[in-house]
């Protein structure tokens, strides 16, 4: 059975190779090939899953060692896979949602002349993401980690004739590279501490090193997670990443890749368990981001950017949960999976709306679309109810557990984190209701574009609506299925460990508070966007609104300090190199030339004087020639 693991990666990798090297001959069938191979990977995943279910909880992990990758003295890096319950969860999510989005893209990208290449990139993404989650060591994980970064770069910039898309792609890669530095350093620290970076030995021997080392490793892993999962302070790329085609936003920038940071932290649970300080920082980063993303999500008029803010915020929940330790790991992953369903569904819904609206993304130019796109409306609506945590739907179960766990952290920290999570729930309800009302309710607000084409909103083809329906079903039922009878907890516990948290508030109180937060959020949104018509032109807004529209000015800060500062630095260095370094080296050569005569008189050893005079002569020649040339 373990020999099947490599097949998970091989199928989409083959697809990527064939589609990207195959040339135009494959244009007509390429998207089918890509979709079939994604589905094949999903089928392999299901077979492995069925096999895993047939075994006892402790014997479920499978290993496959392919070959020794970098055999160097004292250094062991292997191409080897490990498939345990945690990896399996991701495999099913990635290949399942991935296959649906391949199907959706057949319709969505129908009129794009580079559709074959698009499917090649999607397949490449799947392969890299699968390597990331089934690698059995951190270095191979790093390969997947950067591989998804590359796929993300290629897909954000898919329409690279648009300068904004090309810039966004570059920005995403660069910000992620800052995170990758963290992963690099973490791996190097593991190597010097444990002599290895394979999951097994590292995670089993965390007890044998100091807390300081574990804290350092943990913080570096967190830096990596911040980059990939768009957490403050490395969140700035995610909004821009919406330049990519919408299926990409759904798959990579909502359901799978951006959650890799959560995987990394939960996978490294043993390290964080031994480093409470690092763990607290993780929780704080999650809490800050969940509010940050939610506020940004409230202010955006671009439907995809509003959803991107929401993604940031929801991943903030997951990171917060992962920072709570064994009481939160499992709920982080549970929210990750349910979020995968509803957020992918919401993005596909947004794509469907754009498809029917001439690619318009400004929600102020939507309105009343429920009449024109009933399927999109219903599936989007179910995703909406799921994300705001409507009782009984997926998001309700997974988010509620995180809020409970946050309170259960105990002490002042617990109260603060729990309250922030509750506040986040209210803001989530607000901004998502805003999106819902502006898009599907009220009066139509669209107008003819500059060339006089009026949009004719229409429902999308079946290839697009079917994936939306499937995801909507998941958004409704997944959470309940996981939560009832602690199915999900029992499934993951052997890998991540689990401790039942003891919240100072009763379960009923937390649930009640969550529902109250939800009602408040929805109520305010309805008062602002449902009761009165939405203006087509955005009002000036309060200071906070204006700041939130600009991603809370963090981008402006980056631009002024890093981009402008960097440009000044490189420009002055170019000058220094040309004038100073070059000049000083040439000048030194000249002055040494002058000295050689005196030196020779001082030390009349044969070899020395021979050398010095030759060098002196050469230096004079250098100086003279360079001077001649310069003049």
């Amino acid at each position, binding site marked *: 059975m373990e020999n099947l693991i490599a097949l998970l990666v091989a199928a989409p990798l083959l697809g990527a190779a064939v589609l990207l090297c195959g040339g135009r001959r494959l244009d007509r069938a390429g998207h089918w090939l890509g979709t079939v191979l994604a589905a094949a990977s999903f089928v392999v995943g299901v077979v492995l899953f069925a096999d895993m279910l047939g075994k006892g909880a402790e014997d479920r992990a499978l290993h496959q060692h392919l070959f020794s990758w*970098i055999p160097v003295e004292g250094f062991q890096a292997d191409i080897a896979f490990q498939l345990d319950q945690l990896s399996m969860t991701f495999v099913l999510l990635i290949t399942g949602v991935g296959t649906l989005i391949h199907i959706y893209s057949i319709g969505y990208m129908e009129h794009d002349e580079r559709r074959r290449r698009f499917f090649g990139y999607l397949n490449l993404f799947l392969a890299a993401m699968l390597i990331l989650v089934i690698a059995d060591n951190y270095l191979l994980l790093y390969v997947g980690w950067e591989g998804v970064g590359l796929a993300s770069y290629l897909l954000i910039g898919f329409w690279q004739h648009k300068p904004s898309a090309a810039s966004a792609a570059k920005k995403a890669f660069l910000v992620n590279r800052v995170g990758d*530095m963290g992963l690099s*350093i973490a791996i190097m620290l593991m190597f010097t501490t444990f*002599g290895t970076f394979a999951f097994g030995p590292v995670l089993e021997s965390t007890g044998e*090193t100091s807390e300081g080392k574990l804290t350092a490793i943990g913080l570096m892993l967190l830096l990596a997670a911040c980059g990939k999962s768009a957490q403050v302070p490395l969140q700035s790329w995610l909004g821009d990443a919406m330049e990519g085609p919408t299926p990409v936003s759904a798959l990579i920038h909502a359901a799978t890749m951006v959650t890799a940071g959560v995987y990394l932290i939960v996978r490294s649970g043993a390290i964080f368990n031994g480093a409470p300080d690092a763990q607290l920082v993780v929780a704080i980063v999650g809490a800050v981001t969940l509010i940050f993303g939610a506020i940004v999500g409230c202010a955006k008029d671009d439907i995809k950017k509003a959803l991107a803010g929401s993604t940031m915020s929801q991943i903030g929940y997951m990171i917060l949960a992962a920072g709570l330790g064994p009481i939160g790991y499992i709920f982080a992953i549970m929210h990750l999976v349910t979020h995968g369903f509803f957020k992918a569904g919401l993005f596909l819904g947004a794509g469907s709306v754009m498809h029917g609206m001439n690619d318009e993304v400004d929600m102020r130019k939507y309105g009343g679309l429920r009449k024109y796109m009933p399927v999109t409306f219903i599936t989007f609506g179910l995703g909406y109810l799921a994300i705001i945590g409507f009782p009984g739907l997926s998001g309700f179960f997974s988010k509620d557990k995180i809020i409970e766990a946050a309170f259960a952290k105990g002490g002042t920290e617990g109260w603060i984190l729990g309250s922030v999570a509750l506040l986040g729930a209210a803001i989530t309800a607000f901004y998502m209701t805003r999106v819902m009302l502006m898009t599907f309710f009220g009066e139509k607000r669209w107008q003819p574009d500059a060339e006089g084409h009026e949009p004719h909103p229409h429902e999308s083809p079946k290839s697009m609506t079917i994936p939306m329906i499937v995801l909507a079903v998941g958004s409704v039922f997944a959470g309940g299925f996981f939560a009832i009878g602690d199915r999900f907890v029992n499934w993951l516990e052997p890998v991540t460990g689990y401790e039942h948290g003891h919240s100072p508030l009763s379960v009923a109180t937390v649930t009640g508070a969550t529902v109250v937060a939800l009602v408040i959020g929805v109520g305010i949104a309805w008062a602002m966007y449902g009761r009165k018509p939405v203006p087509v032109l955005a009002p000036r807004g309060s200071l906070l609104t204006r700041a939130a529209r600009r991603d809370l000015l963090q981008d402006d800060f980056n631009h002024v300090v890093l981009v402008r500062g960097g440009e000044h630095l*490189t420009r002055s260095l170019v000058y220094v190199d040309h004038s100073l370094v070059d000049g000083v080296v040439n000048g030194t050569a000249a002055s040494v030339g002058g000295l050689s005569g005196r030196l020779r008189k001082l030390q009349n050893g044969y070899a020395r004087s021979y050398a010095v005079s030759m060098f002196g002569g*050469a230096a004079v020649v250098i100086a003279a020639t360079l001077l001649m040339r310069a003049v």
Partner: protein
Amino acid sequence: MSFPLLTATAALPAIGAIVTAAVPAAQRTVAKWVALFFSLGTLVLAGVVFARFEPGGDRYQLTESRAWIADFGVRYELGVDGIGVALIGLTALLIPFVIAAGWHDADPLETKSSRWRPTQGFFALILMVEAMVVLSFLATDVFLFYILFEAMLIPMYFLIGGFGDRAHAGSDENAAKQRSYAAVKFLLYNLAGGLIMLAAVIGLYVVAGTFSLSEIVEARANGTLEMATSTERWLFLGFFFAFAIKAPLWPLHTWLPNAMGEATAPVAVLITAIVDKVGTFAMLRFCLGLFPEASKWATPVVIALALVSIVYGALLAVGQRDIKRLIAYASISHFGFIILGIFAMTSQGQSGATLYMVNHGISTAALLLVAGFLITRRGSRLIADYGGVQKVAPVLAGTFLIGGLATLSLPGLAPFVSEFLVLVGTFSAYPVAGIIATSGIVLAAIYVLVLYQRTMTGPVNEAVRTMPDLKARELVVAVPLIALLLFLGVFPKPLTEVVNPAVEHTMSDVQKKDPQPEVEAAK
């Protein structure tokens, strides 16, 4: 005596150079094919050397030894170790691509006199460089190495000065001036280094009484040859200075951007991917091998300079407006990594540095040769003269991107393996240096992606609208290099196998042991 395989490997390109030069002036195409044929023959011989080399065997294998200048004890001594095997392989592998990429670079612009034969000269000089570089990787006699180290400057000088990049801004006259400035600067910088090295070579002979590398290393190891600390340090500095110029190490790097900018792309590859490797190779073999104590003494300064090179080179690359100068500064940054790996004196650092030499050669060749195809099409080296190439020439843009991704050490491609080994090897001995060097991975991403964005994406620049995509000859150059980058990124074992034993020898030369991990979890 058995067949002198090593001599043959070095002699074949030299013979090729003579034959190529002798082809009649009108038969330019014949000259090209002759040169290509000989370079492929050399590749075959290098392959035989690789196959015959036994990783577990003696340190120097396939040795040859003949008396040469008996009065000075100079011998013609050859031998190959794992590092030499890897670098001969690199050289022999890249030269056919250099020749194929430069196929039209030396075609005469207009028919001058029938005795004018630039094409023959161009390819003969390339083969001459190959012969000297290969022999310098094989020489185990210090004097023989010195001769080659200096002699290769001459064909390089003519290649830079005589066959400039035809894509230049401003007048032809001005371009000729800049080209000859670059060639002279290249020559004088390297000559200066060489002269100081000569003094050190002679000094070494005075102290050791022989030029034989293996004899000196052995005598030093068993204590029969003692050197005063200061003597060893001076001799070390003499050698190191020459190698640091060639490598090039900050602040002795300024000749490289000039030379690479003005030379044709294939010649720029010859400089940075092949000839400069002699510098870092020689640091490993001569500095660490002959002067282990002085090498350790100099380590803090060398590591500091290497770090400056890494960061400085990368920042300068970000600030360049000329594609080839950008790649030159990127190379300076990469040479910083190589030198860092060598002087970290850990197994991972040294193996990484050796692999880095090979991988940097391949990745830079891929990027620079495709950049050359681009520049030839548009007739400009300025980044600002491009834009939107991806739309009109997607294959060219794709290969350029892969070359760029290799340059920024994307995992999955060969340079990642070596860069990570260097980083880990450095970090385990010098954590702060390791962390500073890690910033290189962010900076590399900046210069590569900005270059790609400005040239390949965005609206199509009017001047590139009719640009044709890669032709068959160009694909033959780009595709195998990319395939090799992928292969060595996933399966570097064939290389590490030959390199590891050589690294162990160097580690025992300098009497260093790897730092032990805090927890023995792996065992």
